[in-house]
């Protein structure tokens, strides 16, 4: 029987072959790789395998348990659907970047130690930035660089934490962490990928600038690997729980102000990831199961939303809500898929978001965290408002000038399949419960009070939308986030480098070269340090007198006149050597 390999390997090696294939064969191959990876994951046995001893540590490339398996399943399923969505893309580079990104994310999921996790973590950051840069616009290039800088800073924190942890404990095993310095640095590293406030700014900055297809991949992997590692290492930490609560409200508040459709979705990633982080921070079996179930569901509906908005941008060339509208009759499949995704993210009964969001909110209440519960309920109201706004201004708002065609067949198919999964899990959540980390949790999502409560919440929020539609209507504007401080800080740093530091550099360069020049002159004959300047002075004086008296001479300084016999140099060398040997043997 063939031994299962780390799924990361299938994608990373699979990426190498993409440029060699053409046409239909390439398309079949692109879909075949995630299929093989899925079969491989099904055949993975629980436990650790692919362990390599390196520098006294065990590098574990395949740690398999229920937590890693559930995340891996959804990573590969959505990988397949996202590849189907971008099958028409001709640039091999985009496919290679996406494969490396998927592979490295799976590498993180199955890593059993911090070193291998860090390596895959960094491949993830570097490969994903190409999905932004392939947009080939200045704004995308700039956003990509900001994305990379933020992730490098996060990676440095993570590496520093790992090194301190390894030195202190003598182990690099991926285990539950505490609150000391190493753990805090690791938490910052993980928190950056999970879009903790205020280090979340890379997300709404870069994701809207990505390629139409690249943003679908980006919406899935980076933040969810962050949630996964939090579940493994920092579950049950109150700070994490409340950070999740803050993220839910913060993301929604900024999303409501957005005009760019994909930036609105990006802020909702912050908000929805907040639910997952909150569930994991609560730390109970229901909380962790809820957080991971939300990872599973969110990946489906958020990828679907990015697919829908990607299709709209692809077919109309417009990305601002203010320029859109009236697309329902031109793009019915996209419209229907977007409504399903919106109902899913809002948590409407019958859709997948309803199941997992309820689990997280219930876990916070059961743990006795009323503020956290209320924050998440408030965010649920905001999410509903946001997606009523998105659907209305994209598909239903009057726009007489709008003309568009439905998206290509592969894009439609990917959207329909993803939408069906959202409904399937919403209607039949047992299939999801079956793969969650804890098997002892019994949660019933479809209770009368929960269904009625959700309907009432949405009805009244809908009424508020009708009354205050103009107040949240899109405007042509930029909304400043914490990135304002980072950008100003960055500009300040550039100024410090260009003005004071550069002046200091040029002055010290002049000073250093003069000093070196002087030392070179003096070292031509170190024994006669004093004799040479005296001779120079004498020459100067005599030459000066001769000049005054009108007498010219070709007499100049000749260094050979002042040289000592070679024996003196040898003597000094022997003395120094003797001193060195003496010191060496004595000490």
């Amino acid at each position, binding site marked *: 029987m063939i031994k299962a390999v780390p799924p990361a390997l299938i994608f990373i090696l699979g990426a190498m072959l993409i440029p060699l294939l053409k046409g239909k064969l390439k398309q079949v191959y692109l879909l075949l790789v995630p299929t093989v990876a899925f079969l491989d994951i099904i055949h993975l046995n629980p436990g650790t395998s692919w362990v390599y001893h390196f520098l006294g540590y065990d590098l574990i490339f395949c740690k398999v348990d229920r937590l890693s398996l559930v995340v891996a399943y959804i990573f590969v399923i959505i990988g397949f659907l996202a590849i189907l969505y971008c099958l028409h893309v001709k640039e091999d580079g985009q496919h290679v970047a996406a494969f490396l990104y998927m592979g490295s994310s799976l590498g993180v999921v199955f890593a059993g130690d911090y070193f291998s996790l860090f390596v895959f973590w960094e491949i993830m950051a570097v490969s994903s930035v190409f999905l932004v840069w392939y947009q080939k616009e200045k704004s995308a290039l700039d956003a990509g660089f900001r994305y990379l800088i933020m992730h490098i800073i996060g990676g440095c924190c993570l590496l520093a934490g790992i090194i301190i942890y390894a030195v202190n404990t003598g182990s690099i095993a991926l285990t539950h962490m505490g609150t000391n310095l190493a753990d805090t640095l690791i938490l910052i590293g993980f928190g950056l990928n999970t879009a903790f406030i205020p280090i979340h700014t890379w997300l709404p900055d870069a994701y809207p600038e990505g390629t139409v297809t690249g943003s679908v991949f980006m919406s899935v992997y980076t933040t969810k690997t962050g949630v996964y590692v939090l579940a493994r290492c920092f579950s049950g930490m109150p700070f994490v729980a409340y950070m999740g609560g803050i993220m839910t409200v913060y993301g*929604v*508040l*900024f999303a*409501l*102000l957005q005009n760019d459709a994909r930036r609105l979705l990006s802020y909702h990633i912050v908000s929805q990831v907040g639910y997952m982080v909150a569930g994991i921070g609560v730390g109970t079996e229901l909380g962790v199961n809820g957080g991971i179930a939300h990872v599973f569901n969110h990946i489906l509906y958020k990828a679907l939303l990015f697919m829908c908005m990607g299709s709209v941008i692809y077919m109309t060339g417009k990305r601002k809500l203010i320029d859109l509208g009236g697309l329902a009759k031109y793009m019915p499949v996209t419209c229907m898929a977007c409504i399903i995704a919106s109902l899913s993210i809002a948590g409407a009964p019958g859709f997948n978001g309803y199941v997992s969001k309820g689990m997280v909110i*219930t876990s916070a*209440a*059961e743990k*006795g965290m*009323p503020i956290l*519960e209320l924050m998440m*309920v*408030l965010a649920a*109201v*905001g999410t509903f*408002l946001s997606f009523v706004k998105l659907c209305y201004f994209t598909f239903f708002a009057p726009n007489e000038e709008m003309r568009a065609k439905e998206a290509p067949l592969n894009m439609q198919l990917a959207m329909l399949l993803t939408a069906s999964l959202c409904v399937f899990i919403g209607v039949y959540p047992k299939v999801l419960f079956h793969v969650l980390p804890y098997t002892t949790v019994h949660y019933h999502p479809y*209770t*009368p*009070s*929960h269904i*009625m*409560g*959700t*309907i*009432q*919440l*949405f*009805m*009244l*929020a*809908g*009424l*508020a*939308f*009708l009354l*205050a539609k103009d*107040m*949240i209507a899109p*405007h*042509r*504007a*930029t*909304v*400043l*986030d914490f990135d304002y401080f980072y*950008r100003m800080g960055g500009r300040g740093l550039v100024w410090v480098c260009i003005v004071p530091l550069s002046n200091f550099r040029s002055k010290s360069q002049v000073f250093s070269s003069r000093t070196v020049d002087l030392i070179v002159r003096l070292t031509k004959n170190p024994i006669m340090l004093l004799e040479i300047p005296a001779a120079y002075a004498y020459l100067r004086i005599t030459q000066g007198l001769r000049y005054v008296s009108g007498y010219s001479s070709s007499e100049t300084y000749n260094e050979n006149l002042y040289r000592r016999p070679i024996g003196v140099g040898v003597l000094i060398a022997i003395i120094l050597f003797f001193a060195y040997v003496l010191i060496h043997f004595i000490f």
Partner: protein
Amino acid sequence: MEKGLKRLFLLLVVLCIPAGFFIKHEHAIFLWHKIPSIETVFGFVGAFLLILGTRILASFAQKKEDFYD
């Protein structure tokens, strides 16, 4: 058509408020879980607070589109 839909929606909004009085919360933990139809308050007041929040945020954080250029 649009007016009819609006009226139907408003009717459903009005109906959903008393409907909550017939359903009891299965796992009431906090005080508000015991109040019937509390979600209607959460929905309306929550939406009002969020819209107010966005207006306050917009007053100092909303700038021209080319602000960073």
